């Protein structure tokens, strides 16, 4: 009897479940790339307005007069990418536990050899590896639309890797808590968004210096890593508890 076999089987099954619908990875990838492409088109003059907002809120304290729209876009771009990835996590996690609850697979897992915490962990990692990981690999492409040089995109990968993991672990908690609720997408978002905040703050902070040519902010990156570790430790435990309780009806 091998726990590894069981873990691998669960991972594959979850991947196939998330993939099923025919389009597989195409959907999340298109979302990231397409979303990133939409923003400059939609923004136009709005970029100036948004930049003004950020300036007033102190986010762009150093933005001088006469800065071009594309430069502004470059300053905001990483933030928008964070937003897209956070949103992607919320959308793809919605059914992750709900389908198992409905079709009885959750009971199978509970009666099986893997602890529920591991089950939750694996399921989240499975969806992340199908949705977020390919998007990260392709990051230079949406980054290009948003005015980031490919080098910048690649350098920002560690931050997006860690941040996206945090999003998915917390999103998993929300999905587990609302597994018994129909159409829980909005509910999940409302529940977990505050938990996303530290990852977003540290992640965006880590990536911010790239715009001005310096490397990543390593302090921010370390805080991000800590926040992600915390989400990886607490998220599956909380999700497991929620799943056990939701299966009780």
């Amino acid at each position: 009897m091998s726990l590894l076999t069981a873990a691998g089987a669960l991972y594959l099954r979850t991947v196939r479940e998330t993939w099923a619908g025919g389009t597989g990875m195409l959907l999340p990838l298109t979302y990231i790339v397409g979303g990133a492409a939409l923003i400059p088109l939609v923004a136009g003059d709005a970029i100036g307005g948004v930049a003004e907002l950020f300036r007033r809120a102190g986010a762009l304290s150093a933005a001088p007069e006469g800065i071009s729209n594309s430069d502004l876009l470059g300053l905001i771009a990483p933030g928008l990418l964070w937003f897209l990835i956070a949103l992607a996590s919320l959308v793809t996690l919605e059914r992750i536990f709900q389908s198992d609850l409905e079709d009885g697979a959750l009971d199978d897992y509970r009666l099986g050899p893997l602890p529920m915490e591991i089950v939750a962990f694996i399921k989240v990692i499975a969806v992340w590896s199908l949705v977020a990981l390919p998007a990260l690999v392709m990051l230079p492409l949406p980054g290009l639309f948003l005015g980031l040089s490919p080098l910048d995109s690649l350098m920002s990968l560690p931050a997006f890797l860690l941040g996206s993991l945090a999003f998915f672990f917390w999103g998993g908690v929300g999905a587990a808590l609302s597994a018994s609720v129909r159409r829980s997408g909005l509910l999940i978002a409302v529940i977990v968004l505050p938990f996303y905040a530290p990852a977003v703050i540290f992640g965006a902070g880590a990536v911010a210096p790239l715009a001005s040519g310096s490397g990543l902010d390593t302090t921010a990156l370390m805080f991000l890593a800590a926040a992600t570790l915390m989400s990886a430790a607490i998220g599956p435990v909380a999700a497991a508890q929620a799943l056990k309780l939701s299966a009780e009806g």
Partner: protein
Amino acid sequence: MSEAMTDWRKISLRAEGLASLRGFRLLFRDLDLDAASGSFTALRGPNGSGKTTLLRILAGLMRPSMGELRWDNTPDEAIHLIGHASALKPFETPRSATDAFIRLTGLKRKPALTDALLDRVGLGRPADVPVRFLSAGQKKRTLLARLLAVPRPVWLLDEPFANLDAAGRELVERLISEQCAKGGIVIAASHDETGLAPHTTIDLAEPRSVAA
């Protein structure tokens, strides 16, 4: 899981004073249940009388509102629960679902063995048909396949005869007999009277244990 069959001879279940309050509905109270190795217990009662809840409590998936449950000499992961839900993913086939279940238990799959037991449950031909094209009876048989694929001493069956034709029902009866002969414990909730005589019947409309 390499439990020798003989280990099953010592297993037993003892439940005392079980009660279940779901929301504000009192499903049953003061329910006692004793099941020893090789026994077949039938749960009877109308819909909504708490048969499913009792099975889930015995499976350890729910907590009883009152009462105690004790399993003796049972290995880890000793329970098969076959419920209403199909536990089958739409993209799976009987073969892949059975293999997946085997691997989820941590065991290595053996294709020849899977073939044999799919044949046994009457899914030889539709073994590779996706679940969404299967009839309810075929889905049920796929679930039955897992009972054979992974040996576990305790079978908790919720309406095992539902959706099955006469041949299917006979199959279930045979499987139950064999499991009891091996020393397993079978507890089944069912509307139907079957050819198989249970050792004990518990009627949830009046939840006191009645010996057959």
